[in-house]
């Protein structure tokens, strides 16, 4: 999507079309001729994996919607109907449910990769912020999709999460009633969640287009964290990136297939196979694994308003990352101190995930607080100061030089 196209239409029809709608040239310059840094490692294949997963979720979701009934007395049974009576319905439903988890696994790898190699820095701030928006949209979509099952955990997760908004002073209760469409989570809530769960993936697809556009304007970052300087530093997207991404997508599908066919309920809550019952609260309300770090942050603070503020801040703060990190060096390869603090951040984030699944008592609360403190300190104190005090290692002169030096 950048620069003038070198596309040469091959036949009469394509020549005719190109003069009227240059879509061939757009595709060619974006996905064929587009120069990618030659030193990209396999962590850079997760963008392609995420695009693939969005497609998988949309296709399985659209077919599931043909068989699903968004009505509070029928929703649970309609999903069981899909599992039992629709041809390969079990496959569609398990791919969609496991697919959500794999989607989040990929997005977390993608985000950590961006952080490690400083992919959010000038001139890629907008690209990064679009990514944060995509992440927020994914969280909203996945949450509403989880509620559609209308099992016990769906119902109570919906109750707990929507109740977070009641912490807003003054208008909290009004907002919650408005979200519910009533005075409790019920049929109107299910209906609107269904509507939004169908809508948001298309919004995600739209923002993905912007994300890719911004990527193709700024160009990809790379493990060396320096811009390509000559044609020797890059290779064309096709066949190099295409074949590499395809290989990794196939490997990723092996893990997805393992989940779908052999351990489909590994990541699902047993309580969600009990139909929603407003009169019975499950012994433990635990969100899906991909929300657990934020759930732990919420529960580590005893005050509800402060907890909710911390929860939302922990996600919003990501959007400010390009300006919180003051270092001019992008890649952690040349930032010895940042690298240590980064891995501590990964430990804190994964640790919060584990603690989020545990009851909020004893040592779990203490550890949650330590990790929460580190989570915010990493962004607000460590990153701004590191840029000033850290002594970085010398950068290579070019990407091709870094490639040769690494193995020589």
């Amino acid at each position, binding site marked *: 999507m950048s620069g003038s196209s070198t596309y040469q239409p091959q036949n009469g029809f394509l020549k005719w079309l190109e003069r009227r709608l240059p879509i061939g040239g757009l595709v060619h310059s974006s996905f064929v001729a587009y120069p990618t840094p*030659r030193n990209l490692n396999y962590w850079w294949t997760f963008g392609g994996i995420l695009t693939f997963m969005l497609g998988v979720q949309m296709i399985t979701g659209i077919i599931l919607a043909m068989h699903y009934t968004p009505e509070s007395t029928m929703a649970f*049974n309609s999903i*069981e*109907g899909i*599992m*039992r009576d629709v041809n390969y319905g*079990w*496959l569609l439903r*398990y791919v969609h449910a496991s697919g959500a988890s794999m989607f989040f696994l990929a997005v977390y790898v993608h985000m950590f990769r961006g952080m490690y190699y400083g992919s959010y820095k000038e001139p890629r701030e907008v690209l990064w912020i679009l990514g944060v928006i995509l992440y927020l949209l994914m969280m909203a979509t996945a949450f509403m999709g989880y509620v559609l099952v209308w099992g016990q955990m769906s119902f109570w997760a919906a109750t707990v999460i929507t109740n977070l908004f009641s912490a807003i002073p003054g208008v909290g209760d009004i907002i919650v009633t408005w979200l519910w469409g009533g005075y409790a989570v019920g049929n109107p809530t299910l209906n609107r969640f269904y509507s939004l769960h169908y809508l948001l993936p298309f919004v995600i697809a739209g923002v993905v287009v912007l994300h890719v556009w911004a990527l193709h304007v700024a160009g990809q970052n790379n493990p060396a964290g320096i811009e390509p300087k000559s044609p020797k530093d890059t*290779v064309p997207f096709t*066949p*190099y990136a295409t*074949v*590499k991404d*395809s*290989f990794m997508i*196939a*490997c990723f599908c*092996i893990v997805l*297939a393992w989940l*779908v*066919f*052999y*351990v*489909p*309920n*590994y990541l699902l809550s*047993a*309580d969600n*196979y*009990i*139909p929603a019952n407003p009169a019975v609260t499950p*012994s433990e309300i635990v969100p899906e694994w991909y929300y657990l770090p934020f759930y732990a942050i919420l529960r580590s603070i005893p005050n509800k308003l402060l907890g909710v503020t911390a929860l939302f801040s922990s996600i919003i703060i990501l959007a400010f990352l390009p300006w919180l990190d003051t270092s001019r060096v992008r890649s952690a390869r040349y930032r*010895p*101190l940042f690298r*240590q*603090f980064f891995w*501590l951040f990964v*430990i804190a984030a994964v*640790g919060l995930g*584990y603690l989020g699944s*545990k009851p909020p*008592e*004893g*040592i*779990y609360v*203490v*550890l949650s607080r*330590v*990790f929460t403190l*580190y989570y915010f300190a990493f962004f607000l104190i460590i990153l701004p100061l*590191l840029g000033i*005090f*850290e002594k970085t290692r010398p950068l290579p002169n070019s990407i*091709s030089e870094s*490639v*040769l030096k*690494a*193995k*020589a």
Partner: protein
Amino acid sequence: MKIKNAAFAFALAAGIAASAAPAFAQLAEQVPPPRQSWSFSGPFGQFDQAQLQRGFKIYKEVCSTCHSMNLLSFRNLADPGGPGYTEAQAAAVAAEYKIKAVSDSGQPIERAGRLADHFPAPFPNDEAAAAALGKAPPDMSTLAKARSYSRGFPWFIFDFFTQYQEEGPDYISAILKGYKDPPKGFTLPPNGHYNEYFPGHVIAMPPPLQDGQVQFDDGSPATLEQYAKDVPAFLEWASEPHLIQRKRVGFQVMIFLIVLSGLLYFTKKKVWHEVEKPREAAAGQNPAKTSI
């Protein structure tokens, strides 16, 4: 250098704290049920048809007096990958049941069950069940998936690789065998029963099965030990009727994906070889002699 030391100190402190955590992990009041071996576990798991038929017999004679199984139809008994009844046998089972219906003139009637009918529930609704029994018994359609127990760290990580998905059947089996006299000092609430494996130990359901209660035609022993294997197996089929098909298709998909990944890997190597050449030369290799 000071910051570097601080980072290490923090990592050390976090490490110590994390290693201390498991000591506090035994807070849950649920006793983990013992692991059983099931014919349907693992990548090539199969349902044992005779076992499913025995389990169905126990369900029909004992469980179904209190528990509903609303999501299953009589036709499911003849479905492939299930208990292996013929359609005629399933129809004969259906005919034993009385189904509430509406006559042509609009009057409520009872007629003999057909293949397409769902298993009728013992009570018209949960309130009626609770009034008769003290507490409404759970529906059995998804029970084997709706019951589980916490595996804890690090076992839940191994479970992904060992494909342990039978927490529900293990738990149900343990419950059936878990009735005991309460330990000294344990106050049992009225209408409660002590069960070792039930969370909190107080279960509303009285011991449902005793030795000799259900007789089998296939010579299997009429013991609680046997019932506690057959009932969970039957309930697993009831909640995952396509389990066999799922694992069979899964194996085919796995073979396909592994071959595809292998082919794509070598394609990638071939495509990237030209790009890798300068690096190989820099590393002292002869690019002309490196394969693909």
